């Protein structure tokens, strides 16, 4: 392994960035770090394209529309993601999954976060980001194992470069920073997507992760899905900053805010962020305005803390219907395409129903197998104790069966 020589010192990085921004966007580095005056929005809630003047763009915040092929591929994942969310919620109601924190309403963010990355890049998701995990290529059943209750994780993080879905808030952002730092030391051009929610921005690790990424000038994109609630607590109780994207400037990185239910705008903003990060611009912070349409989990009752009228308001901004109208209006989406995409979504839902419905026997002795690379003598002793208990239970059961005969 080669430790890369070109590990820029913090002081030099700051000077380089100012010059780079001036060259690329013709604006000062302070203006570059501040988010646009309004969130970036390219498609109206009714599916019509906003005129370039209306998109909220200004120097340094202009985004080209993604290609038709990218939009169609993303729309397909959006439909699959919605189907997965609803299928999983049904499986929870049927008792086949222990819990599922649904990203219903946030699927555009999920799809964009995964699709803007290249194969060698990494994604660090939270517990609500199962759709992003799947979109990145992780097998749907493996992605949902954590919620089925037979192990705390179901997929190999190294296979698709997806960190384990993180339950403690915000801790994963630092893991993203470490992965990016290691890659940079080896001279690799890996970009790391670090996902969190609005509530997570109050945690200390949010501050530490953004600061570390900025000081070490690392290619990390901090992607905040601002879905307005941390379980029941509204954003106003988390932060009174002008926006969460404004926090970026305090760390010396660029921030941007985008309509999180507008897949076109999301892809445009995220694609550029990935490109900038890969070119060596350092970390970026993107805040996506979206809404958690359902309760925190099945154990939560959202009617206790938010009015139905608010939910209805966001229903009208649904990312899926918006994208569908836009693509249909553009002539990209016809009946045949709709049918093909619906079939794909249904196939994934079937895979989940079958995979998660299957009662996979748990392996009690696995409890001791993975604590360390090699079990300690104490763990071997405890493993033998449980094995003995299991053997006695089995023999008692066999004995019972014998006597019944």
């Amino acid at each position, binding site marked *: 392994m080669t430790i890369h020589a070109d590990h820029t010192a913090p002081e030099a990085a700051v000077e380089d960035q100012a010059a780079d921004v001036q060259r690329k966007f013709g604006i000062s580095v302070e203006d570059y770090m501040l988010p646009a005056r309004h969130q970036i929005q390219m498609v109206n809630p009714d599916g019509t394209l906003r005129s370039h003047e209306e998109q909220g763009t200004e120097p340094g915040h202009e985004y080209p529309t993604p290609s038709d092929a990218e939009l169609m591929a993303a729309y397909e994942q959006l439909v699959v993601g919605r189907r997965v969310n609803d299928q999983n919620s049904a499986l929870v109601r049927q008792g086949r999954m222990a819990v599922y924190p649904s990203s219903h309403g946030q699927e555009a963010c999920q799809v964009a976060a995964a699709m803007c990355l290249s194969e060698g890049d990494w994604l660090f998701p939270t517990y609500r980001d199962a759709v992003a995990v799947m979109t990145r290529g992780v097998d749907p059943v493996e992605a949902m194992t954590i919620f089925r209750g037979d192990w705390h994780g179901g997929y190999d993080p190294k296979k698709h470069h997806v960190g384990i879905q993180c339950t403690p808030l915000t801790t994963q952002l630092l893991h993203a920073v470490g992965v990016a730092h290691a890659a940079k030391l080896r001279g690799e051009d890996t970009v790391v997507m670090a996902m969190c929610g609005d509530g997570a921005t109050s945690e200390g690790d949010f501050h530490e992760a953004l600061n570390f990424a900025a000081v070490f000038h690392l290619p990390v994109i901090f992607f905040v899905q601002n879905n307005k609630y941390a379980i029941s607590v509204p954003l106003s109780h988390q932060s009174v900053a002008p926006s969460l994207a404004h926090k970026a400037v305090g760390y010396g990185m660029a921030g941007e805010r985008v309509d999180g239910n507008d897949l076109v705008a999301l892809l445009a903003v995220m694609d550029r962020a990935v490109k900038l990060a890969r070119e060596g611009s350092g970390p970026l912070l993107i805040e996506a305005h979206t809404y958690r349409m359902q309760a925190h989990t099945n154990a939560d009752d959202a009617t206790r803390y938010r009015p139905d009228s608010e939910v209805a308001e966001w229903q009208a901004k649904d990312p899926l219907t918006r994208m569908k109208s836009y693509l249909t209006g553009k002539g990209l989406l016809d009946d045949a395409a709709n049918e093909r995409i619906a079939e794909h979504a249904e196939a994934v839902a079937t895979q989940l129903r079958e995979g998660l419905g299957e009662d996979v026997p748990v392996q009690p002795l696995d409890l001791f197998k993975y604590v360390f*690379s090699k079990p300690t003598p104490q763990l071997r002793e405890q493993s033998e104790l449980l094995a003995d208990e299991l053997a006695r239970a089995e023999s008692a059961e066999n004995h019972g069966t014998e006597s019944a005969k």
Partner: protein
Amino acid sequence: MTVTTNVNGNVSAATASAAASAAATAEASGPQSITMAKALNTAMADAMRADSSVLVFGEDVGMLGGVFRITDGLMAEFGEQRCFDTPLAESGIVGMAVGMAINGMRPVIEMQFDAFAYPAFEQIVSHVAKMHNRTKGKLKMPLVIRVPYAGGIGGVEHHCDSSESYYAHTAGLKVYTPATVADGYRMLREAIDSDDPVMFMEPKKLYWSKDQVDLDALRAEHDAGTSTEGRAAVARPGTDATLIAYGPSVPTALAAAAAAAEEGRSLEVIDVRTLVPFDDETVCASVRKTGRAVVIAEAHGFASVSSEIVARVQERAFHYLAAPIRRVTGFDVPFPSPKLEHYYLPSVDRILDAVDDLQWED
């Protein structure tokens, strides 16, 4: 392996000369008098020479060489890419190390003091300790968290905690604590080699303790794969009672054994070395032989490693015991201020009193 120099290239003369003296030490052969600080420093330098994925970072570990100078000269020799200062944030240091370990590195990170490691507790307990288990071994956590710990240096509040029990209580962490100069080298090399996370607890009052040590012999031992993990050492053989100690308490136990010998009592001293995994075999073999035991630790006694040792020994060697196992530990009070610490710390007299209490008259 290619290791390139730092871009700035402006290392101070002091750091450069420290590196040169480190190199000189490394070249000398045969037994020489060195400190535990030097043994730890040499262990990191040797590991970094052997494997370019070994990185050292933390607060003040770069140019300054650490507040205890344990990382002295590493930045000068290995460059700012491999030994560097981070922003002042312990959770950040550990969390970033987790990510680096996921992505092929072997971070050796320094928490400046025992009580300053607490902000990192969530990363340590929720991720460092659990990542291997959670991913069924798909992700290894080959990282070493060095923690200067315990008292005896007249330190102010928050600089003298014995925090080993928190870590030993956490499933998925290995906990090492050397008590001798040679073990400082041996155990740190082994910790860096380990694919599992190691809390490496360094008794700060022993940093400047000296011993005659042959570094080349230790290197050869390392290269031959000799392991200390899960192997307690008999620090002093004896026949009448066993003193079980670790880290900062080992020299105190040895002093007590020397004093007892003058009174005609032969005490065996066991240096536990690795709290996790624990060497039941060596500890219990000694107690079975002597029939009496005192456990010594600086940490508060309640719900601690010392209580665990007592529990384990009585579960395994009850019928060999001539007396209840006694403990000499820190009192269950916050670590005292410098002028009061000697009332708190286990002392030779307190150990000898405990030994006297082991029902010799029966």
